[in-house]
């Protein structure tokens, strides 16, 4: 309960100012396509040079939590996920916004972000030592099986066709192998110099989600009168809170899945949202409504991606191992002030660590308040005429994908992938499994290669990959997941 003593540090005028500034800035940066939480936090690091350690970390903590939630804004309103964490939010969030319920979608997303986020930070406060051991338990073989488990999610993400879902996943995994092989440094499938750096995940996300949107708007043409203007409905906040609390299954599944996945170093928040979305659907009595603007989809995805924030810092704070790219940047923020994370961090620097963690708690609340405040206004984005929308999204896509690495190559990759995705969508493929393949491919590959090298030096690949409790557990869950997908595919076929 030590942390309570350090709330005073957060409520000083300077801290509050930084906290509010960090939260609002984080929401805006998070909502900007191309700016992932990692980049946003990296951009803020130079500011912390001029601040004290406590103030610097309060700013970074507030920005981290709010950028993750801010990504949902562009995911819902523009169908551009701000970061991989927000992919799942587009599935139901954007559909809901198109029906005129953008305000509701945003409110649901901010409230579930708050609940998930607070739960995650509470885990960080109370269970850090236990969780640290947990995080270490995942070796290469386990991460490999975890990636395979993620692949089994691919099959069920596309609710219409398991085969096309898997095929999209394969295309994504193949795209991920383009560029230099990370282990041996060999060039693979580099057909054009722009591909030398491989397919970068953020430009790919922008292309795969935003460009098909733009082309769809083009395809409706100029004089299309059949498109009515979307009526943006108001949504009372009380109803949103009630809605979130009544969707207990989605909320609990999302929060817990997010916390567990966030803890695992190297996998991080990228897949938390998608896996939670998939799990929530499997547990939901209203399975069929997912993907049609169903509130459970938003709640599970957003609860998960903010729940992952707290646990993702556990390996960093206790073991000095950054478990995610954003944690790596935060490590820099600590080191600049001469603070070395480690088991004794909480004893040596309680005056820095606790205000930092507390700021994430209060940051979540501020983020939720601001988010809800802007929700009904922001939802009017859906009313913007198609012509303005198409041009704006295209412009944002170009600027956003360029900004990631200041590289024209990324812009070209974004445009080509986007164009390709439009045509794939016309023929029954969807972007979410493709992106999941793009994320999971490298995780599966590098851990498989690493694991087999370790296995060769020890008792061979079979023992290494197929024995041990955690391996067996992950394999069992993957098998159940595949069986479930196959079963639901067969049973829907009978219905049809």
């Amino acid at each position, binding site marked *: 309960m030590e942390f309570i003593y350090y709330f005073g540090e957060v409520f000083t005028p300077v801290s509050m100012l930084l906290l509010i500034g960090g939260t609002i800035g984080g929401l805006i940066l998070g909502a900007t396509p191309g*700016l992932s939480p990692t980049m946003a936090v990296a951009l803020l690091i130079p500011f912390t040079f001029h601040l004290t350690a406590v103030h610097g970390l309060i700013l970074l903590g507030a920005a981290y939590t709010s950028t993750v939630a801010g990504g949902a804004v562009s995911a819902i309103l523009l169908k551009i996920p701000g970061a991989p964490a927000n992919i799942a939010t587009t599935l139901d969030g954007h559909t809901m916004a198109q029906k005129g319920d953008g305000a509701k979608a945003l409110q649901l997303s901010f409230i579930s972000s708050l609940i998930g986020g607070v739960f995650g930070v509470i885990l960080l406060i109370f269970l850090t030592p236990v969780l640290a051991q947990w995080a270490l338990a995942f070796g290469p073989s386990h991460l490999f099986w975890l990636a395979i488990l993620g692949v089994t999610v691919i099959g069920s993400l596309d609710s219409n066709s398991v085969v096309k879902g898997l095929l999209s996943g394969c295309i994504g995994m193949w795209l991920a192998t383009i560029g230099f092989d990370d282990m041996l440094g060999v060039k693979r499938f580099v057909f054009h110099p722009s591909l030398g750096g491989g397919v970068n995940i953020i430009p790919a996300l922008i292309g795969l989600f935003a460009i098909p949107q733009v082309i769809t708007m083009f*395809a409706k*043409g*100029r004089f299309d009168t059949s498109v009515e203007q979307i009526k943006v409905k108001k949504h009372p906040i009380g109803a949103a809170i009630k809605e979130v609390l009544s969707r207990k299954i989605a909320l609990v599944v999302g929060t817990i899945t997010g916390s567990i996945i966030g803890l695992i170093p190297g996998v991080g928040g990228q897949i938390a949202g998608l896996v939670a979305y998939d799990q929530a659907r499997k547990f939901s009595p209203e399975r069929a409504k997912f993907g049609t603007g169903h509130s459970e989809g938003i709640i599970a995805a957003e609860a998960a991606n903010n729940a992952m924030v707290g646990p993702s810092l556990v390996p960093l704070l206790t073991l000095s191992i950054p478990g995610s790219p954003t944690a790596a940047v935060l490590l820099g923020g600590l080191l600049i002030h001469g603070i070395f994370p480690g088991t004794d961090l909480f004893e040596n620097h309680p005056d820095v660590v606790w205000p930092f963690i507390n700021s994430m708690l209060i940051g979540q609340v501020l983020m939720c308040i601001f988010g809800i405040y802007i929700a009904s206004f922001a939802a009017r984005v859906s009313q913007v005429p198609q*012509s303005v929308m198409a041009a704006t999204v295209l412009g944002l896509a*170009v600027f956003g994908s360029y900004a990631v690495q200041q590289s024209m190559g990324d812009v070209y990759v974004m445009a080509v992938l986007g164009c390709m995705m439009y045509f794939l969508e016309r023929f029954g493929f969807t972007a979410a499994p493709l992106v999941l393949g793009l994320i999971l*491919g490298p995780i599966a590959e590098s851990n498989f290669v690493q694991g087999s090298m370790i296995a060769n030096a020890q008792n061979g690949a079979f023992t290494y990959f197929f024995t041990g409790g955690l391996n067996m557990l992950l394999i069992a869950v993957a098998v159940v997941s595949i069986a479930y997908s196959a079963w639901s595919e067969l049973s829907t076929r009978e219905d049809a």
Partner: protein
Amino acid sequence: MNYLQHRISSGVIAVIAVWVCWISYTQKPAEAFLFPRVIATIFMTLAIWTFIKALLGRTKTGNGLSLQAAKNMAPGIVIAGIYIFWAAKALGFYVSGTIAFFMLLSFYDPASNNEPKTWIKRVIITVGFITIMYALFALVLQVYTPRGMFI
């Protein structure tokens, strides 16, 4: 449901899959292509399966592309293509962005082209958009975009 289009599209995907597979199995060094081989093999199997299903006319999803839609999108894609693949670098991000935005907006805006008011509105929206982009990317984030001849 347009079966011919489905046959062609799944055929194209199958051809790409076979080609990816062929590259994976012929490139050296083999260790670096181990994972691509596994992926490419599954990719090819699924792609051929989908192709056969399309040939048999048993595709369940996807609406294909109508001729009208293709006609509608063509100018937009051409403008966007020139913007992204040539103008952005040659003219600079802000100049090319302004031109592309204005052209797309004017082309797809259903309002009458004969009214001066329409054009004023379009100019205002374009200037507003590019100002926000400049403020956000150049001033706040200090991203150095290609300048080309102008800014």
